[in-house]
């Protein structure tokens, strides 16, 4: 059993362990769950330390045939694209468990669901077999359905149902595409990513395009891309805030990650559909930005800003050159940290005041200086201020895109402007203005919350000043991916 299997199965074992503990002992359950996620995070960090960033291929590979007839296998591996995502996933899960202290009803079920969710997420990023990938993709749905539907807000049932229906609908298209490719895979007879990539080469061009569209719909729902984002505002707003952290921090990245994998599989189709991708990306950015600007509900604002920021990821992918892809991969990490931190802080604020309307707040800096510090850092990172990780990602995407198209960049800048408008406005409304009597007795962040918010902000600022660590991790894999696109696409 390799390190990847240990990493993958630790949360599942943790969930099993929780099953055995009686539900009344909520203290023990919390401690065990936190220990398990911390252990997973440490394992992921250790893995990142062991990871050789000069090697572009798969590392720590594990292979065990599951179904020899169909050729599916339990195949795990990491490369430069999944490595940052693994660390991010384990980090954000630890953070969200730290922020889950306020959950008081059926604690046991909640923590089991959270650990199963982590299991599913890690599986998606580790799987090197499309069948396994699909299984883990669906595994994440079940705990999320319960997490939103059971511990959510006012419209939790609609939200959880919408979320599951949308994602299931999308994954049908993904499944169809996978089946279509496997038609051409008779001699390899397997669903390994590598063999599927070879099989995709033999497909006629129009079929490749159809298959890519299927993937685009499947992953686009999760990401989300403009017309497929209907589940997102409701799910993000209604989910309890620790779940929102994971939802926007990791679940959206699963979509982007899958899309990068399918671009690697079908570069010709991606090149053919490049203009569609760019259009969708720019439209998502502007659309999400404008809607975020319109929201007075803080959580809805963050949710729509996620649409806008994932548009940047799609744009980076759509450039199909090295710099742009690098921008997309960094933006995935950046958005994970920034949106996660925003949901965390907004959730903590909501716990104290029970209102999410930004107009109810004013002059919070006097009562909550620590909260104000972290919220301001995060909001400034949202607008891509130099010195924050958001800047590095957006800069790469801009440069990558500018190599490809000139004037389209006007729209890109417009969306930055809108981002800046709502970020600055939120800072202004929350922290300045007249003193309101009923906002004068809000406790500041407690120690655990400080740890959670502080480590997120530290990550945002650290990678803003020293992005080399992040860039080096993915650089060789992205260079290889880019040469593949160049080779096959041209």
């Amino acid at each position: 059993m390799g390190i990847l299997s240990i990493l993958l199965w630790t949360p599942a074992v943790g969930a099993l362990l929780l099953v055995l503990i009686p539900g009344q002992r909520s203290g023990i359950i919390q401690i065990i769950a936190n220990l398990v996620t911390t252990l997973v995070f440490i394992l992921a960090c250790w893995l990142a330390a062991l990871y050789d960033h000069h090697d572009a291929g798969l590392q720590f590979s594990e292979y065990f045939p599951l179904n020899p007839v169909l050729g599916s296998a339990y195949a795990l591996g990491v490369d430069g694209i999944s490595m940052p995502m693994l660390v991010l996933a384990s980090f954000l899960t630890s953070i969200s468990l730290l922020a889950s202290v306020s959950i008081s009803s059926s604690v046991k079920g909640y923590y089991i669901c959270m650990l199963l969710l982590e299991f599913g997420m890690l599986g998606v990023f580790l799987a090197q077999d499309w069948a396994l990938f699909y299984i883990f993709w669906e595994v994440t749905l079940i705990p999320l359905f319960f997490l939103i539907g059971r511990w959510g807000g006012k419209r939790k049932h609609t939200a959880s149902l919408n979320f599951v229906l949308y994602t299931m609908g999308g994954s049908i298209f993904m499944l169809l595409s996978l089946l279509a490719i496997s038609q051409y895979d008779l001699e390899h007879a397997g669903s390994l990513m590598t063999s599927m990539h070879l099989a995709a080469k033999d497909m006629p061009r129009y079929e490749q395009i159809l298959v890519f569209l299927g993937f685009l719909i499947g992953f686009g729902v999760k990401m989300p891309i403009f017309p497929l984002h209907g589940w997102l505002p409701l799910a993000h707003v209604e989910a309890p805030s620790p779940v929102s952290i994971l939802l926007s921090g990791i679940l959206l990245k699963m979509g982007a990650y899958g899309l990068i994998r399918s671009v690697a599989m079908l570069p010709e189709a991606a090149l053919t559909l490049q203009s569609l991708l760019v259009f969708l990306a720019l439209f998502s950015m502007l659309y999400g930005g404008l809607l975020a600007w319109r929201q007075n509900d803080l959580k809805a604002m963050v949710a729509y800003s996620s649409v806008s920021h994932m548009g940047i990821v799609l744009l980076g992918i759509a450039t199909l050159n090295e710099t742009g892809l690098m921008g997309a991969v960094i933006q995935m990490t950046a958005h994970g940290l920034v949106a996660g931190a925003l949901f965390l802080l907004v959730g903590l604020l909501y716990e104290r005041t029970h209102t999410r309307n930004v107009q109810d707040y004013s002059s919070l800096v006097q009562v909550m200086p620590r909260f104000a510090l972290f919220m301001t850092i995060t909001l400034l990172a949202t607008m891509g201020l130099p010195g924050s990780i958001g800047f590095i990602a957006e800069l790469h995407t801009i440069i990558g895109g500018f190599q490809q198209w000139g004037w389209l960049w006007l729209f890109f800048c417009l969306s930055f402007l809108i981002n800046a408008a709502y970020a600055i406005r939120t800072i202004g409304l929350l922290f300045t203005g007249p003193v309101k009597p009923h906002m004068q007795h809000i406790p500041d962040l407690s120690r655990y919350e400080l740890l959670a918010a502080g480590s997120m902000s530290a990550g945002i600022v650290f990678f803003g000043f020293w992005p080399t660590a992040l860039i080096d991790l993915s650089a060789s894999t992205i260079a290889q991916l880019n040469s593949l696109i160049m080779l096959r696409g041209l």
Partner: protein
Amino acid sequence: MDALVVLIPLLPLLAAAIIGIGHLSGLLTGEGSENTTADIAVWAITLSCLHTLILLGADILAKNTGAFSVGQWLVSDSLIIRLNFITTGFNAKLAALFSILLVIVSRFSVNYMHRETGFHRFYFVLCLFASAILLLVLAGNAVVTFIGWEIAGVCSFLLIAYAYDRPVAIANATRVFVTNRIGDAGFITGIGLCYVWIDTVNWGKVNASASILTPGQASGIALCFAIAAFAKSAQLPFTPWLARAMEGPTPSSAVFYGAVMIHAGGFLVIQLQPIFEQAPFPMLLLAVTGFATALYSTFVGLTQTDVKSSLVFATTGQLGLMFLECGLGFWQLASWHLCAHAVVRGYLFLTSPSMMYVTQDNPIKPVPPFISQMRWAYVASLQRLWLDQITDWALVKPILRLAQDMYYFDDYIVDRFMGAPAPAIQAISSLAQQEEKSFGTDLENDSNEFAKGTGLAGKLTEWTSAIVHWFEERWMVQSVSKTSHGTARKLAIAANQVERLIFRPRYLVLFVFITLMVAF
């Protein structure tokens, strides 16, 4: 031994981080934890001092290779910025001296700052400053030096504004910071010119390639760094900022403006000796400015009546002499002068609170009679030659007026086009409105009231976002709810009915019969 150099700025930085995080999380607050904070700071700076001494010893024994690189910080095309250090020569000596002075001041402050409201804040800034100034002195390239230079500037700002509830302190701190920014502009231009002409920002390579530069290029680079040095070391015409900087607590004055930071300008010039030697005009400028500052400071210093002000002008006078020595080519003398002055001035500043007590029976000597006859000189000296006023008149007022014009332009043209940011005051203008908000409206309503823009661009955004919002509500959110709760429900009811029909006994029996008939 070279690798030790990393720890020298790192230890105080760690101490600053620990104190900062402790203070932020509420672990280090109040009088009770003063000892902890002071211990952390003093020990970190002392350890760092020991390291500088070891480094210096190794340098004297010729065990150092002269440079140490931690790694690359930024790579873009041919611009490579490493995190590297110089471990020999004047840099190592000065680092040792500065760190000793820092240890003394940090120890001195334990008692001096006792029970001050910002005790922890003071030590946080002091540690950060110690880290920055040691980085500045030991850095191997211009960019890393500049990082130290800037952090030191920010620390100076923070300590001048130590009593931030007093408007005077804030105004002075801002003035000092802005004055220093002029020097920073020179520094950045200097880095840029180095990169353009020599293709490197490493001090060693910059100095090594001084001979291949034309005198014009060397003058350009030297001039930029000279401006940076003048601003940091309070030479003319920047001298008045130093007097304003005395607003901070005395130990900070001692370490910033007596012993350490004020010498950064002199250090920079000495560091760039080969470049300056290629450039006759900046050398002349160094000499003239230094001499003028020395004269000016002596002249103004004669009429100062409080201890700190007279120390300020004595400091700038001595620094002026250093620049004069540099300008005349006596580099060795200037560096000795710098070190000696740092020690003496640090001591004088630290003892300044008890100066009146010490000099009780020893009154200040009056000026010679031929000077005391000149009344105009007395007034001029008291007014510090109107340097502040001249700066105000020549720089601050025109800029203010320009700002007013810009404001007008902004108000009447840009705002009409782009829209004005809504001031937070208008967010809720009356109590009644607030009541209405908290009782009357529900949170789920369309946020029409909220998303308002002004100006052309603002209105455009508003309308677009309204359209987008309508689209989102109508087609994205509601349609899904309708499908999942309308059509789907109808379908489900229909399916249920079919099922109910099928499972009635008579149909079931019929089914069985049909199956049997088919089977046989």
